[in-house]
């Protein structure tokens, strides 16, 4: 959608306005995006808050012209997730959030020079490859703004001298990639978790600013590789809507079917990895047996197995394979049968039940405040499905049920995903026989230039709301292209979910949160 009414605020008005919005029911901060608007407007932040009852969105922005010491008041006391988002904006743009309790870098090394996302920064020249081990500080800085404009710094302690800190990761099989947790322990009990991110920070958002629009598409697949189809769908849809391209019904339906297949693929992988992490190797093999069937369908139609590169601006790369419908129709009953097998193999297992029921619960208030969308949010009873709340593609014409559960513990997070496989199968079943005729691709100009403006498009990927925020100045490459990571809020909530549980539960809780690290670090 086009964002033509972003409300501009002075930094001094920001907190008042945000508090007013929060009290009006805008309790979900979906985006907090750092921006560099150049010399005149300066550095700033774009906020998006959403009302979880009415699903109404409010967009605001604020900016400060001071490039030497840009200061913007924090909102981290209003929404928990702002804590992490503001650290990201600090890391990329050097914006200091006054009153934020933990103003550290989040993705880049602590000895990194400069702020890479600023338009005038030259990150590669200032930062040669450092082969020394990364220094990790045990304290952090809080800045407070004085009435005269100066800043007072205060040291906050992350880990004190009495804390027993264990490093889990970056090379650890249960962190699902290169994630690093610093865990403070009291015996076996977790007292605090400090996630260290950025081991797979690939600078995708900065790369986007130098790539043309068709080139940026290639990078979305590699963010959340288990939601490759969906994240690329989001970017394509965002650019299409910005340019006013109407894609045919055929494209909409095929995209929806493939999105759902991707979701099943991801949830099967979730099941397999969780079982593997908890010691059930056989279940891992069963999961992969079924996943290969989906990959066969992908391979036949799209050519790729994991990184699919199928959506493109204006439609699809190629028409669906003649076998596509037959294969999918064979797959639906096959998968329904095998889900029962999964439950028989693993869900009923006493060891699994004891290790997951009541472990790492998150309440509905917590998941909203942390912005944990997707299955993690729905397990706590938050109806956050973008497919229902802001329908896109062909989701408004299919009948499906948004699976919700109550307690928000590890077991619920696990069950949600298995139930969603069945829902996805229902969606596919409704559409697979009714793929309308039409063009598989609309004609586009060889050089794509998006008209000047600001655009946002969200989709429901396998693990939550994935958003594409695009600001264009009318050039052939974007001025700013930001992705709302689905996994970042999940990692932010790990501290809350794990406190008071045993260190062995970290594996279960992390596994059921279902995050993908390259998507977190971008």
């Amino acid at each position, binding site marked *: 959608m086009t964002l033509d009414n972003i409300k501009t605020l002075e930094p001094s008005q920001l907190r008042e306005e945000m508090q007013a919005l929060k009290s009006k029911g805008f309790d979900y901060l979906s985006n907090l995006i750092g921006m560099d608007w150049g010399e005149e407007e300066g550095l700033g932040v774009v906020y998006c808050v959403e009302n979880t009852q009415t699903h109404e969105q409010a967009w605001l922005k604020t900016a400060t012209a001071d490039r030497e010491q840009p200061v913007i008041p924090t909102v981290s006391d209003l929404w928990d997730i702002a804590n992490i988002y503001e650290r990201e904006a600090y890391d990329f743009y050097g914006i200091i959030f006054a009153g934020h309790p933990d103003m550290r870098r989040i993705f880049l090394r602590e000895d990194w020079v400069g702020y890479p996302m600023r338009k005038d920064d030259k990150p590669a020249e200032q930062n040669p*490859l450092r082969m020394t081990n990364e220094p990790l500080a045990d304290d952090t800085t809080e800045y407070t703004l004085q009435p005269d404009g100066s800043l007072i710094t205060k040291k906050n302690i992350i880990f004190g001298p009495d804390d027993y800190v264990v490093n889990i990761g970056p090379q650890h099989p249960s962190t699902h990639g290169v994630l690093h947790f610093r865990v403070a322990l009291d015996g076996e009990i977790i007292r605090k978790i400090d996630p260290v991110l950025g081991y797979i920070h690939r600078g995708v958002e900065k790369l986007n600013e130098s790539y043309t629009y068709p080139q940026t598409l290639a990078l979305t697949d590699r963010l959340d590789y288990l939601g490759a189809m969906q994240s690329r769908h989001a970017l394509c849809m965002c650019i299409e809507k910005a340019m006013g391209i109407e894609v045919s019904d055929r494209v909409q339906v095929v995209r929806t079917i493939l999105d759902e297949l991707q979701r099943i693929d991801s949830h099967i992988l979730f099941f397999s990895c969780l079982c593997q992490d908890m010691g059930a190797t056989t279940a891992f093999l069963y999961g992969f047996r079924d996943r290969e069937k989906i990959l066969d369908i992908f391979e036949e139609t799209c050519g790729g197995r994991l990184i699919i590169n199928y959506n493109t601006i204006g439609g699809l790369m190629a028409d669906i394979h003649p076998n596509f419908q037959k294969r999918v129709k064979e797959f639906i009953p096959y998968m329904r049968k095998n889900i029962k097998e999964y439950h028989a193999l693993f869900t009923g297992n006493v060891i699994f039940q004891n290790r997951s029921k009541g472990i790492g619960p998150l309440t509905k208030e917590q998941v909203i405040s942390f912005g944990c969308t997707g299955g993690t949010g729905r397990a706590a009873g938050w109806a956050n499905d973008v497919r229902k709340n802001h329908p896109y593609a062909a989701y408004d014409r299919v009948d499906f049920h948004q699976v919700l559960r109550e307690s928000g513990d590890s077991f619920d997070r696990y069950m949600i995903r298995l139930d969603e496989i069945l829902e996805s199968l229902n969606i596919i079943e409704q559409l697979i026989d009714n793929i309308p005729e039409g063009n598989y691709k609309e004609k586009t100009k060889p050089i794509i230039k998006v008209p000047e403006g600001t655009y946002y498009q969200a989709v429901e990927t396998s693990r939550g709301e994935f958003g594409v925020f695009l600001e264009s100045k009318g050039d052939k490459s974007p001025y700013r292209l930001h992705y709302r990571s689905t996994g970042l809020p999940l990692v932010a909530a790990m501290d809350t979910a794990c406190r008071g549980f045993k260190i062995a539960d970290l594996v279960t809780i992390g596994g059921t949160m279902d995050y993908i690290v390259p998507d977190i670090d971008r």
Partner: protein
Amino acid sequence: MEVKKRAKIKSFPYEEFKDNETYEKLVQELNKNGANVIVTQLDNLIDWGRSNSLWPLTFATSCCGIEFMAVCAARYDIARFGFEVTRNSPRQADVILVSGTITTKMAPVLKRLYDQMADPKYVVAVGGCAISGGPFTKSYHVLKGVDKIIPVDVYVPGCPPRPESFLYGMMQLQRKVKVEQFFGTTNRKEKEPKE
């Protein structure tokens, strides 16, 4: 009498490997001085064992790791080649499959993992990112190929490589292991000079 070693992979004829030229060069280099008949026979036995039980380190940073999991699963079944014993500790691993992008923040960690592995050790660079930085090569935070920091034995191109290419790459590594002289060279690698 001196004997020159040659590798043979069961059920995969020599002609079907694509880059035998590079391999021949490697064979010449490794067999430069030849070796005693008895030592060679013993060598062959040990290398046969080593090449069929290469234990990989589970080291995956991004997308290629998922394909590695697919290779380990039933359809592609890496156990046919003896690579199924994936180790989580570098101390127990023989080969590190660098699957995925290595960022500059990760580079010291990778180097340390490599240093922790016991000799003889091998490195396979899996996927475009590990070979050259891949689609992210222009990024400020991505290492442009792992061979900048650790020596690489086999490169497996692809983004991500198909499971078949994984297996092909691993067979190439097996050929290399089979042609190495274990006694006198591989088992007595010189320590790296301290900087």
